[in-house]
Structure formats: C-alpha cells, structure tokens
C-alpha cells in the first residue's frame, strides 16, 4: 500500500478526523482523514482505490477490534467520524457509478424507542463497509419502513430497540414490510434482544454488535448471488 493510503488507513483506525482534532494523542498535530483523502485524490488515486484499499479495510479492522473488546464505543465512534470526514470527498463519486456500492441498508430504532447510540454505530459501520445507508432515525413506525422499502425494494433492513416494551414493535414492522415485500431480509439488535427472540419474530439475523451487522449483510449478499 502506498504511504498516503497507509496514513489514511491509520487515521480511520485510530479516529484521527482532521488536522485540528486533538485525538488520538499519538497523531496530534498531524493531518487527519480529511486531509489525507484530499491529498490522495490530488495525487491521482481513484476513489475506488481509496475506498477498497484504505477506508473499508480500516473500518473492518475497527469492527474486529470492537468485537474483541480491544476498543470501546468512544474509539469506534471516532473512527466512524474519521471515515465520514473522508467520505465527504468520496461520496460525489458514488452517484457517478465510479464506486460500486454493495447495496442499500435501511436502519431505524423502532417506534416508541428514542435510543440511538446502537443505531448510529451500526449505520456508521455499515456505511464504512461499503453500503449505502438510509438512516430513518428513532421512533420509526411500520409505515415509514414500508415506504422506504417501496422506494428501495432490494434493500436490507435493520431494526434496533433498547426497551423491552418496544421489542414487540420489531415484529409489527417485519410483518408490515413483508406484507408488501415478502423477500425483504431483516437484522435485529439492541440490548434486550437475543438470537432466540430474533428467530421468534421472523428476523433473518441477530447482531450482537455492529460488526455482526456487516457480516450478516455480506452473508445475505453471497446468498443472493
């Protein structure tokens, strides 16, 4: 890997957003993901090369470290923020087709539930893994999921819930979406959610952490192929 892409990989892995960011201490005063992405583009690296060689592998490593308890939520969020700082300069190439995305992922916290930290982590990780993410926000009811699936019929859907009282709403949403789109596949997660519960409501996968969402989506993709 070229030095500039190695630097970009390092910035995303350790959450160095831009030159002004004081975090992480070992990279203080140096350029961050924002500056290195601009430099990489200026030096002629293609957006696809930047994504495939630096950004996606860096976020994959972040997800692995998180699932192994080597890093925690703050570090993961900062890595995702560094990734987003890089994507500001890469995203214009998405619409041109120059960068092939893996697919579309619709994500939301279910109706009655206002918690968003898990949802945000999942959105950031999945986007960092090469997917287009539609974040419907919190307190999202069946109608909004149905509407979004109508607009993106090939999308996969992620549902998050932190409250035991809102867990049943996951099934309501799955049933409502499947009524109009029987083949839509769902991943569910959240503190009170278990694999058994996921299976009982007809979800296709349960994710204990954001990396498992990415793995489930890649699995869905292979199965579809």
């Amino acid at each position: 890997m070229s030095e500039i892409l190695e630097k970009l990989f390092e910035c995303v892995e350790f959450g160095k957003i831009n030159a002004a960011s004081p975090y992480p201490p070992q990279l203080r005063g140096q350029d961050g993901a924002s500056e290195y992405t601009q430099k990489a583009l200026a030096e002629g690296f293609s957006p696809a090369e930047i994504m495939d060689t630096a950004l996606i592998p860096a976020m994959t490593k972040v997800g692995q470290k998180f699932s192994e308890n080597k890093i925690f939520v703050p570090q993961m969020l900062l890595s995702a923020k560094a990734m987003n700082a890089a994507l500001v300069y890469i995203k214009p190439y998405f619409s041109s087709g120059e960068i092939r995305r893996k697919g579309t992922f619709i994500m939301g916290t279910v109706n009655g539930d206002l918690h968003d930290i898990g949802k945000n982590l999942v959105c950031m990780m999945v986007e960092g893994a090469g997917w287009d993410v539609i974040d419907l926000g919190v307190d999202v009811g069946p109608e909004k999921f149905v509407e979004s699936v109508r607009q993106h019929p090939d999308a996969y859907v992620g549902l998050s819930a932190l409250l035991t009282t809102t867990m049943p709403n996951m099934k309501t949403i799955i049933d409502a979406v499947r009524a109009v789109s029987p083949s839509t596949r769902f991943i569910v997660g959240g503190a009170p959610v278990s694999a058994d519960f996921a299976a009982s409501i007809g979800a296709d996968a349960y994710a204990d952490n954001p990396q498992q969402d990415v793995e489930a989506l890649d699995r869905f993709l292979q199965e579809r192929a």
Partner: protein
Amino acid sequence: MRTHRVAAVPIMTHPGIELIGKTVRDAVTDGQVHFQAVKKLSEVYPSAACTTIMDLTVEAEAFGAPVNMPENEIPTVYGRLVGDADGVASLQVPDLTAGRVPQYLLANRLCAQAITDRPVFGGCIGPFSLAGRLYDMSEIMMAIYIEPDTISLLLDKCTRFIMQYCQAIKEAGSAGVVMAEPAAGLLSDEDSVLFSTKYVKRVVEAVQDDSFTVILHNCGNTGHCTRSMVESGARALHFGNRADMPRIIAEVPDYVVVMGNIDPVGVFKQADSQEVGLRTSELLRQMSGHSNFVVSSGCDLPPLVPESNIKAFFQAVDEFNEQV
C-alpha cells in the same frame, strides 16, 4: 452441605405497579402510587430488601431535559439539552424541588416509614450516564477525547446534583441507594475510571456510612471494567446479565457485596418458570463459595414479567438455602 444462606434482592418495581393496578406513568409521577407499589411487593415477595423505581430520567428532567412519558413504558429523555462549552458553562445545577424529584423523595420517605422488616434502597443515576443524557450519548462518547474540559465541567455539575439528591434520599430514611451507571459500561476500564469512577467516588465518600450503602449498578460491564467499579468505594456492586459472575467475583474484594445477574428479559420475562428456577439454581451453585454474593436480577425487571417466574426465582433461592 452449603455453609451460608444467600439473600435475594431482585431489582423490581414494575411487578408492584401491576399488582396495584396502576400505570407506569402513575407511579413515576406520583410518590404515593410509587410507594404503594413498593409496599405491595414487600408484602408479596420475600425479597431481602426493597428498591424504589430505577428511573433514569428524573435527574435529567430536573436539569431541564425533555422527557417522553408513555402510559406503560419506562420514561426516556429525548433531544439534547447542552451541546457545547457555553451551554455547559451556563447550565444550572437544579435544587431538589425541580421536576419529579419531590415525588421520588416522597416515595423514599413513605417506603422507609412503612417498610420496617427489611431495608429500602432508593435509586439514582450515575454521573456519566446523566451527563450522557444531557449532552447526547453518542456525542459525549467522542467529546471525552475532543473536549475533555467541557465534559469534566458537565460531570462536576452532574455529580453535585446527584450528591445532594443522595443526601436527601438518606435523610428520607433509606438504607442506601442503587446508583445506575450503565453508560460507563460502554467505556474501557481506564476511561471508566476517569469519566465515571472519579465522580461516583465523590458521591460515595459524601453519603456512604454505617447506615447508608451505595450499590453501584453497571449492566454495561461485560467484565471489562470491574476494576473501575471496585475503585468507586461502593460497598456493593451490581452486575448485568452479560457478566460472567464467577469471573467477576474473583476480581472483587470479599468485603464488597457482589449482586447479580439473572437476565431480566431473556429469563425473567420470556422464559417459563421452570427455566427461571433452573437458571437461578445454577447461578447459586456457581457462586456457592462466596459469602459476599447476593442473587439478583441483571437489571430492573421490565413491565409484564409473569408472577409465576418471580415466584420460581424465590423458590429456587429457598431450596438452595434449605441445604444450609
């Protein structure tokens, strides 16, 4: 042959609210209803101690945060009360007349007066979890590194409020307080010490004595930040269902009480009573060599836990203790 009996203290109030035919909203807004729910539970179940409602919105609401309060669900904070250094600097530490604080103190006082056959513990949120509710949980996770001075000031203000709230719970006659600090479980052990324990310790040192115990609850700790919980000085530590209790207790000095951790949703709420009994017996067997263990739920029992499951939990404890 077992050598010592094990006390059972599930963290629960929703079953009491249901037993008296009231809604969650009734109980979290009216100290009398709150008290009646806790009193009813003390009459129905042989818990070694009672707890008041684990409501993690009371303190944030006192600061001015908007709270969503559905009829039969746990209240939640929404929006973001403060978002920058200026907002934190101008944030006022509320007094104990703010929001629903007087109703919670009333419930604590009535419980302490009426329930005399066992200790009653009040409830409060931990400093980092409160700061996260005021600043936005995702944002504070990054701001501890990006804006540490701002977060330090916010944590200081949260701690000052929690300290006076706990002092009032103590004056109401409670035997202690269950301090819920789940957001600290999202941090590494080192960060948990810096951004949670340091502040929890100030509260513990201000209120804990022979008559008042702080039980520090962190259901986000999967085993990675036990040291930070021990360093708080709390006399009892309460763990969530994802913690491996035999491993956890090995890291805790034997003069500190260790409480946990039957899954409140997957077991208490969703399993049948036979499964609840089996899981409880298994945990008791695993922990039987530790005299500082108190069997409990891994977190607050949610609404609509079957009564038969709570009975199965206590029956398993009885059967274990009969062998002593």
